[in-house]
C-alpha cells in the first residue's frame, strides 16, 4: 500500500500522496491514531472543520491471511471528546488495501447544505453532490450504490442518525451479502455527517494482488495460523455455532450480566435471550447459524436470523446488542430484539450506546421497561427525524441521564459501559476506566482471563492482578488492531504460543521486515501512549480514568459486591 488519499471537503479537492516514511510501518489503529494525533488539534470541535475522519486497512489486510478483513476508522469522538478508533468487518478493507491505498483522510467541512457521495478508485476520489439517498437508511444506501455501480463495490455509509449529527451515530460497512457491519462506537457517524458525506463507494476495478516480500514464508505461516484458528475451541467451534450470544448464559451464571440499568447481575429471562435459544430459533426457521462478515474469515461468528416466516431480519446478532436490549433494557422477546438490531443497523446507531441510553431513559420514565415496540417507534420517528426528544436520545446515555436527572448512568468518558458489570468482574472495570477509548470492552478484553479461562485465570471478584492483566491485554489489542486481523484471533493467541509467531511471520513475509514479539509489544505501547497524550491535551485528564460513583455505592446481586479498587492502584495502569 503506497498511497494516501486526502479528501478536502471544504474546497472539494482530492490529493494523492506518497506514504511518509514515519507511517510506513503502521496500519489500522496504529495509523489512524498516529494521523489523528498529529493532524487534529486535540481541542477542536469534533463536528468542525479541523477534525479529520481517517480510514485505514490493517497491515495484513488485502492479503490472503485468514481473518484479515478488518478496517479501522479514527477521529476525535463527538461522544467522548477524546481520540477514537473503531474497527469494522465487511468488504471495503480488502478492496482499499488491494487498490494500494494505505489510508483515506477526510478533512475540512463544506460550507453549504449540499450532501456528497464519494467514489474511491485506483486513481483517486471523485466527490459528487448526492440527493437520492439523503434521509434514507443504510440498507437503502447500499442498494442504491449497488444499482448505480455494481454489487462488487465496497460501501461505507451513514444513516439518518449520522445526518442528524447525533453522538450515538455509527458508520456502516457493507458485508458480502450487502448487509451491514459497523464502526460502532463513539459517534463517528456524526463526524462523517458533519463533513456532509453520505456514503463512500469503493470501486474494485484495478485491484491487484499485494506484493509479498517472501510468498512461501507467508503461505506457510498462514497455513499454521489457520490450523490454530480451527483447533482452538472458541474460534474453531464455539463462535461458529452460537456466535457471541453464547455469553448471555456465561455472564449470567457468573453474576455479571448488567440487568435493568445495572441494578442486578442476573436476568430472570436470560434463557429467552440466550445464545442457545438464538441458535435453536435460527435452525428451526432455516436461517444460517454461521456466517462470515468478510472474506477469508475462518471463525464465522455472525449468523442470519429470520422471522417466523423465514424472512431476513438481521445478521451480526451480537452478545452486546442482545444483552443491552434484553437484559439492560429488559426486553424478553428475541424477535423484538432482532427487529431492533435491524433498525439500529438501518438508522445507523451504535447498538451498545443506544439500548444502554434507552435503559437510562426507562429509569427516567420516558418509556416503560422492556417496551421494545415503543423503543422502535422512538428510533424510527424521533431519532430518525431529529425531533427535540429524538435529539435528547441521540445525544447518548450520559446526555439522557443529565437531561432527566438520573444518577445511575453507566458511562466512562461519556461512553456507555458494555455487557459486563465491573463490580463482580474487576478486570474489565480496569479496562473501562483506563482505556483511551472510553468504556470499551474490546480494548482490553479481561473477560477472557477473568471469566473464560483463556490466557490463564485471574479471580474476577478480587482486585489482585487486574491492572496488570488489563494493561497487557490493552497493549496486545492495540497491536492486533493495527494488523487488520479480527480480535477473535486473540483466543488462540492467548493459549497457543505459536499463534503470535505465525502472525509475526506473516508480517515479516509481507513487508520483508524482521519484527519480533518485542516489536509487537512496543507497537502496542506506542499506540496507547499516542492516544493517551491526545486525550490529556483534549481535556480528558487522569480524573476521567474512573468508574461512575454508583458502582462504589451500590452492591450488585448475586455476589453483593461494589467497585472498590484503590484509585492509586488504578492510576498505576499508565506505568509503562
Amino acid at each position, binding site marked *: 500500500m503506497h498511497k494516501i488519499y486526502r479528501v478536502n471537503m471544504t474546497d472539494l479537492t482530492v490529493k494523492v500522496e506518497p506514504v511518509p516514511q514515519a507511517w510506513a510501518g503502521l496500519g489500522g489503529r496504529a495509523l489512524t491514531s498516529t494521523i489523528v494525533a498529529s493532524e487534529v488539534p486535540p481541542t477542536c470541535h469534533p463536528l468542525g472543520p479541523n477534525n479529520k475522519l481517517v480510514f485505514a486497512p490493517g497491515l495484513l489486510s488485502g492479503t490472503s491471511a485468514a481473518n484479515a478483513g478488518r478496517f479501522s476508522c479514527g477521529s476525535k469522538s463527538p461522544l467522548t471528546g477524546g481520540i477514537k478508533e473503531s474497527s469494522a468487518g465487511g468488504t471495503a478493507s480488502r478492496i482499499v488495501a488491494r487498490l494500494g491505498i494505505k489510508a483515506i483522510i477526510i478533512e475540512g467541512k463544506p460550507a453549504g447544505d449540499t450532501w456528497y457521495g464519494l467514489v474511491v478508485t485506483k486513481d483517486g476520489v471523485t466527490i459528487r453532490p448526492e440527493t437520492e439517498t439523503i434521509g434514507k437508511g443504510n440498507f437503502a444506501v447500499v442498494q442504491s450504490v449497488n444499482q448505480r455501480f455494481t454489487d462488487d463495490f465496497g460501501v461505507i455509509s451513514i444513516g439518518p442518525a449520522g445526518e442528524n449529527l447525533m453522538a450515538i451515530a455509527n458508520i456502516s460497512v457493507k458485508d458480502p451479502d450487502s448487509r451491514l457491519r459497523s464502526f460502532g462506537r463513539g459517534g463517528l457517524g456524526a463526524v462523517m455527517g458533519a463533513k456532509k458525506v453520505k456514503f463512500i463507494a469503493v470501486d474494485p476495478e484495478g485491484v491487484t494482488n499485494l506484493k509479498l516480500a517472501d510468498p512461501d514464508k507467508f503461505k506457510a505461516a498462514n497455513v499454521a495460523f489457520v490450523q490454530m484458528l480451527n483447533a482452538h475451541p*472458541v474460534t474453531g*467451534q464455539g*463462535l461458529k455455532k452460537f456466535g457471541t450470544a453464547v455469553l448471555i448464559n456465561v455472564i449470567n451464571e457468573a*453474576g455479571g450480566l448488567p440487568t435493568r440499568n445495572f441494578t442486578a447481575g442476573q436476568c430472570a429471562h436470560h434463557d429467552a435471550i440466550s445464545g442457545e435459544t438464538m441458535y435453536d430459533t435460527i435452525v428451526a426457521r432455516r436461517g444460517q447459524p454461521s456466517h462470515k462478515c468478510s472474506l477469508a474469515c475462518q471463525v464465522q461468528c455472525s449468523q442470519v436470523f429470520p422471522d417466523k416466516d423465514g424472512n431476513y431480519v438481521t445478521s451480526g446478532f451480537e452478545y452486546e446488542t442482545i444483552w443491552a436490549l434484553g437484559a439492560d433494557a429488559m426486553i424478553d422477546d428475541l424477535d423484538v430484539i432482532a427487529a431492533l438490531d435491524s433498525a439500529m443497523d438501518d438508522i445507523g446507531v451504535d447498538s451498545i450506546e443506544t439500548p444502554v441510553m434507552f435503559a437510562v431513559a426507562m429509569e427516567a420514565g420516558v418509556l416503560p421497561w422492556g417496551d421494545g415496540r415503543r423503543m422502535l417507534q422512538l428510533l424510527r420517528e424521533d431519532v430518525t427525524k431529529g425531533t427535540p426528544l429524538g435529539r435528547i436520545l441521540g445525544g447518548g446515555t450520559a446526555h439522557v441521564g443529565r437531561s432527566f436527572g438520573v444518577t445511575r448512568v453507566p458511562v466512562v468518558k461519556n461512553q456507555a459501559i458494555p455487557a459486563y458489570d465491573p463490580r463482580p468482574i474487576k478486570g474489565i472495570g480496569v479496562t473501562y476506566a483506563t482505556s483511551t477509548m472510553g468504556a470499551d470492552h474490546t480494548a482490553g478484553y479481561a473477560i477472557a482471563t477473568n471469566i473464560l479461562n483463556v490466557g490463564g485465570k485471574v479471580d474476577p471478584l478480587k482486585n489482585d492482578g487486574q491492572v496488570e492483566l488489563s494493561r497487557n491485554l490493552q497493549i496486545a489489542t492495540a497491536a492486533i488492531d493495527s494488523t487488520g486481523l479480527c480480535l477473535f484471533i486473540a483466543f488462540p493467541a492467548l493459549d497457543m504460543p505459536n499463534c503470535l509467531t505465525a502472525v509475526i511471520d506473516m508480517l515479516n513475509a509481507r513487508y520483508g521486515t524482521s519484527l519480533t514479539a518485542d516489536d509487537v509489544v512496543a507497537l502496542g505501547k506506542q499506540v496507547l501512549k499516542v492516544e493517551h497524550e491526545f486525550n490529556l491535551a483534549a481535556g480528558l485528564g487522569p480524573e476521567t480514568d474512573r468508574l461512575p460513583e454508583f458502582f462504589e455505592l451500590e452492591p450488585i446481586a448475586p455476589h453483593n459486591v461494589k467497585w472498590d479498587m484503590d484509585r492509586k492502584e488504578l492510576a498505576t495502569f499508565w506505568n509503562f
Partner: protein
Amino acid sequence: MLITVKLFATFRQGRFKEDRRDIPAGATVADVLASLAITPPEVGMVFVRGRHAEIDRPLADGDVVSLFPLVGGG
C-alpha cells in the same frame, strides 16, 4: 445432598438444561462430570454458586453447578 446441575451450549446435546439430583456426601465436580460422560478437557468453565471452581472441588448441599464447554465472545 441435593444439588442443581445446569448445562450450557453443546453440553446440552443429548443431556438436559437443568437437573436437580441427589449426590453422595464428599462428591466433587469431577464426579458430576463423570456421571454426565463429560471429560475434563472438554470443560471450559465450572461455576459453583456463580464462582469459578476447580474440577476437584467438593460439593455441598444446595450447590448450583454450572458447566460450560470452552466458549468465548466479545
